[in-house]
């Protein structure tokens, strides 16, 4: 079991390195370097080659790409993402506040979505192929099909404009107190959980139906264990394994959704910062935001896989998954 855990942690570290290579190469090597990407055509028309060379040297861009990558990675691993290309401000100062606000959104969403999805998934699996299941399944397909920028604007229209209960956009500072953020988080969270609940409840329903059809549930039935006990004591824990297997996809989808929701509601998070940085061509901020997003997915996926090792005796005995 220890070797399975170590193997899994090693894999996460390898993926982390590959992600960092990709993020660095995508912005710094192809087809120009960070400075080429940051400057607009207007800038390039005004600057002389000597000035450009000077700027390159000041930013350390005259060093070989491999050296710059090692430098960037060793900084990134301890949370130092360098300075912005255009203003020279430390990237850390720009991203930590927004990162906290984005994590708040992600945690709130998951805290609400998981229990709701479990109830819905259990209802659908309990009345499988009957009316409640059909309603839940169709509802999930519809919920799944709504892009966040549509559901977000729909909620703004309904609950901020036609029925002015909640604020439409967030006017708080990045460093605003947590409690104020909670009040304005209602509509953004409501927007993201539509997709999250649809996705998680479908996975749980499938996992439940599979485990209810398994041999050991059949044996428990033959032994006279009541159906309710079978569902809640045996099937629900077993159905968590396929759901945890999808953790990476869930977190990745959640983060993509958060970028859109932050833009719709002007939520001062890392997603909004990312979109603004892409517009301003602040490459080092873009690198940091994307890298941190991937780190989030990698960590949650690792935790999910470690939980599976702990939950499932078959995986625990085996050599781990390939």
């Amino acid at each position, binding site marked *: 079991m220890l070797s399975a855990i170590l193997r899994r942690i090693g894999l996460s570290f390898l993926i*982390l390195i590959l992600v960092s290579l990709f993020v660095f190469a995508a912005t710094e090597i192809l087809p120009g370097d960070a400075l080429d990407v940051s400057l607009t055509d207007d800038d390039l028309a005004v600057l002389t080659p000597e000035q450009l060379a000077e700027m390159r040297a000041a930013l350390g861009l005259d060093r070989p790409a491999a050296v710059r990558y090692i430098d960037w990675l060793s900084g990134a691993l301890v949370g130092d993402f360098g300075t912005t290309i255009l203003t020279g401000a430390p990237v850390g100062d720009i991203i930590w506040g927004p990162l906290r606000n984005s994590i708040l959104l992600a945690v709130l969403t998951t805290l609400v979505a998981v229990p709701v999805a479990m109830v819905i998934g259990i209802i659908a699996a309990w009345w499988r192929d009957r009316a409640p299941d059909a309603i839940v399944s169709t509802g999930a397909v519809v919920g799944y099909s709504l892009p966040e920028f549509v559901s977000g604007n729909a909620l703004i229209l309904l609950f901020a404009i036609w029925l002015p209960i909640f604020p439409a956009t967030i006017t708080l500072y990045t460093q605003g107190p947590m409690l104020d953020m909670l009040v304005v988080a209602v509509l953004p969270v409501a927007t993201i959980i539509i997709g999250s609940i649809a996705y998680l409840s479908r996975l749980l329903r499938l996992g439940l139906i599979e485990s209810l059809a398994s041999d050991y549930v059949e044996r428990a039935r033959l032994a006279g264990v009541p159906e309710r006990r079978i569902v809640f004591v045996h099937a629900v824990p077993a159905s968590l394994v396929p759901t945890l297997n999808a953790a990476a996809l869930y977190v990745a989808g959640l983060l993509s959704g958060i970028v859109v929701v932050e833009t719709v509601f002007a939520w001062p998070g890392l997603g909004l910062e990312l979109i603004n940085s892409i517009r301003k061509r602040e490459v080092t901020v873009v690198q940091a935001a994307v890298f941190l*997003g991937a780190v989030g997915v990698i960590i949650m996926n690792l935790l999910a896989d470690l939980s599976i090792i702990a939950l499932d005796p078959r995986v625990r005995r085996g050599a781990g998954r390939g």
Partner: protein
Amino acid sequence: MYRSISGAVSGAMPKALRQILRTPMTMIGIVLVLAHVIVALCAPWVIPYGPSQLAGMPFEPPGDRFLLGTDVLGRDYLSRLLMGGRITMTVALVGVLIAIVAGAFLGLCAAWFGGLADEIIMRLVDTKVAIPSILLVGVLIPGFGQSVGVLIFVIALVYVAGVIRTVRAQALTILPQSFVAAAVLRGESSLSIMLREFLPNVADLLCVEFAIRMSSAILLVSSLSFLGLGISPPTPDWGLMVSEGVGFIHTDPWLVIYPSIALCTLVVGLNLATEGVANALGLDAARGMVKG
């Protein structure tokens, strides 16, 4: 989950077709998708004004001249709405087709060759899965610029990983079959075994993959356009139209509502149809569904 190997699928077709016709939600989905495809194909010949033509004053109310009024710049809203799905659908279609072809090839290679090839392909897949789609596009746009070509490339890049995983998993169940061993004994080449023994057995899976990835890709392209990272103005596009109209949501909510309805009916229709057809074929659509 039982899956038939080689040929048995065609025998199951009439039964599957009956089930599809009997399920109202599936039929609603198919009708929605067909309606959207027909509108997208016919739009250039039926629109009253050019989609980028400044035909009237800004914010003209609906009337005889402009059935749905005009937008922020005075362009006919109906014309833009009818044209608004074409580019997104095209980008999604081409991108996903590339992802399916490349993903099928790489997935089969990973399963057939195993060892180092498998290890390299799957670690690259893991790497892609770790980067959320919109962030992946975001990190590519500063360097690669923003054009339809780049957009098709990133869509293919986003969806190829999922296809590789699905195809590889299915191919690994085919690997121990006797007809594969027979082909090896006949001395067939790796490429010929992959094309003639494996590909027919993953074909129905690829169709479901295609449908699932299409709806997801349409959502992604629209979301990117809304964020200003996708299709550029003045192209008529639903995601872009929502982002252009959102500043006037207090006074003219229709500028946001119409393109939203158009986009949602397409994606809901596609997902309902996919779900119904996949269920009828005994395939499992839900697990592969990936948003964003």
